């Protein structure tokens, strides 16, 4: 097991998580309510309460390289249950953003899918499912992912071959432009 040096807690990391999430991570007293309610614990490498603890200990590398922050589904169970009113899901979100900024993607496919999704939204103003699938397959090389769902989805007309352009597509595009210029957090 890794040994954490308590003295090298990265205070800047703690402060950045706190500032960007607007949450006071010191108020977590490790009751475990977030972990108890989290539906993704079975795939996590660190449970939510452990992520909270590692943040308190300033263990930047461990947190930002963890699988858990990518696998979090933002269902908000942790936030709802927290007795100290910490928005834990928000903290998971912030950690994911910070990991991305540092070029970490421990769950590569999750990141690639998010990228494909955003590209699709930028181009069409909304998600174009088939285009998104092709984009994701091209980037990830995972040709057979969820292929078994295709017949059902096609039969129910959930996979149109043409994108549905929306009104105000240019405005959505401008959001992306503004983001790239503005230097806002990813």
């Amino acid at each position, binding site marked *: 097991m890794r040994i954490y040096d308590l003295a090298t807690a990265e205070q800047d990391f703690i402060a950045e998580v706190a500032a960007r999430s607007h949450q006071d991570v010191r108020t977590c007293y490790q009751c475990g309510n977030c*972990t108890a309610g989290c539906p993704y*614990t079975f795939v996590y490498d660190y*449970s939510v309460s452990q992520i909270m603890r590692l943040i308190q200990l300033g263990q930047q590398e461990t947190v930002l390289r963890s699988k858990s922050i990518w696998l979090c589904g933002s269902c908000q169970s942790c936030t709802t249950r*927290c*007795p100290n009113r910490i928005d834990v899901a928000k903290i998971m979100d912030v950690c994911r953003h910070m990991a991305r900024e540092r070029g970490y993607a421990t769950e590569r496919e999750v990141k690639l899918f998010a990228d494909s999704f955003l590209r699709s939204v930028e181009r069409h103003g909304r998600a174009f499912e088939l285009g998104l699938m092709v984009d994701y397959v091209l980037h990830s090389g995972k040709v057979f992912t969820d292929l078994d769902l295709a017949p059902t989805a096609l039969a129910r007309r959930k996979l149109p071959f043409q994108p549905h352009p929306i009104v105000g597509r240019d405005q959505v595009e401008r959001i992306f432009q503004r983001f790239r210029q503005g230097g806002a957090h990813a």
Partner: protein
Amino acid sequence: MRIGVFICHCGSNIAGTVDVRAVAQAAKGFADVVYASDTMYACSEPGQEGIIQAVREHNLDGVVVASCTPRMHEPTFRRTVERAGLNRYCFEMANIREHVSWIGKDTERNTIKATELVRMAVEKLRRNRPLTPKRFDVTKRVLVVGGGVAGIQAALDCAEGGQEVVLVEREQSIGGKMAKLDKTFPTIDCSSCVLGPKMVDVAQHPKITLHTMAEVESVSGYVGNFQVTIRKKARFVDWEKCTGCGLCMEKCPSRKAPDPFNEYLCTAPTINIPFPQAIPKKAAINPETCIMKQKGKCGLCAKICPVKCIDFDQQDELVTVDVGAIVVATGYDLFDWHKYPQYGQGRYPDVITSLQYERLLSASGPTGGHIKRPSDGKEPKTVVFIQCVGSRDRSVDRPYCSGFCCMYTAKQAILTKDHIPDSQSYVFYMDIRSPGKAYDEFTRRAMEEYGAQYVRGRVAMIYPKGDQLIVRGADTLAGTQVEVAADLVVLAVGVEAARGAAVLGEKLRVVPDQYGFFVESHPKLRPVETNTAGVFLAGACQGPKDIPASVAQGSAAAAKVLALLVKDQLESDPQVSRVTPARCVGCGKCVQTCPFGAIKLVEDRFGNPKAEVVETVCQGCGICTVTCPQGAIQLEHFTDNQILAEVQALCPPRIRVNYAS
């Protein structure tokens, strides 16, 4: 006047951020100040001796001490100046600790502020005059509000100390929460076996008058002379005659109302004695479910009663009693766990509170001491205990620890194994708090000898599956989720202030904290006193407390009462209102505004109406002084002239006005 000023260092408490020497130096320039010095600890023996010596050497007739809050040491220094031969009211205090050094870090500005506070105190002292306290008689009787274990202990100790005691209890029987418990930690001795004899002592003690089903209606007066009105609620049974035989309970046809004594786990007859050891063991009728009271016919109890004690026309009765002291021991109530969505909010009958579980364990409970779960009466084999339900949780405004849940949960886990040897208990906890004598060993026994599985984490979900409940929680030590299929779930619900405590606190002028617990006078040195003289606290009404702590506090409050009532007379504070008859026009406005009824209208020798203050009743609040249109009532040592002189000392006007008294 010849005034001496003493600036206290209070170690580094004051001297750390105030230049005390500079303050003393500045004080030498104030009007009438003939001596000023700084002293390490003014309250210490050498410190006090220094003051006495200075008074003698410099022939002082007034003293200002600049130190901590007067709440801390004003009485100390009044005694000091008295020992030096001065009137004890020729003394003023400037608070340069709480108001200066503890709240500011800038030494320069602190020193300026401290100097100004001392200047104000000097200006006030210059207009003080010697006062002599009046003496008044003390009523040698004590009122104890609340008949739980703390109130019982206080009542018995006061009675044993020779004082008359009036014990008022809201419920039908005394005993409080402890009477509902099966066994007590950490000795597993039977709760009613240790409490029962004390309850009987209360009933039999010649010095104790017991009023149950009664509440304090109103309180007036002051320390040594309270007048209390007690409302004894109609019980529709003549308790003079009732023998507690219980025949009426057997025959009563209305028996569907949930039983509050058994925590609503079962029903009770409408005419009822709550439990076998009840004191007084008398029956009472609940008028809300009584067929006779609701529909005007039935009366079966009246027919069957061998002593004919049923009285359907009984009314509430008001009893007035004079007492010299009051002990508040109103205890606590349980947190309403239905606020949490994760425990089912009452959808699952097999999720119960810890106090309900006590009733299931108790031989006098609804199941005769056999653990049967509420849904189907089956004996549970897997019992899950969840701690901190309504404790240490900011999201439900209960950030405090309830203190004793860790211990009673360990006890209940042990008792579960005793009752059902092939059962398995699981305890979800956050931290185990067991600081009492033999407490931690007790929780270890629950784990090691009785095999209770302790899981460090909280529970996020309970849902039914078959006839069981799936409890999903976290084990933070293993760092993952855990699940267990339980037959019964027991919630260790937290403690909150007793319902009605706020209303009673208002009547007694005892302040509740933000969670409704009564505030003691000093958290360390005056734990059972309140800021209202003559009113004392005992037990969980002051904050969560287990039985030993409640009993200890009951005895402590009794000691305080006895120390007060041993005196035949008390001195009243002479810093009260005084009427200048020449100015008084007899309008009577002060009489109307006085909250203590301390002012009356009398006639002077020409037959003109004039206000007169009853010194021993006046509390010195000053409302009359701001009401009087003539400025005829002045509060001693807080006269208009003194307050204006203080203001002037703080912000001197350009044109000097002489506010000499």
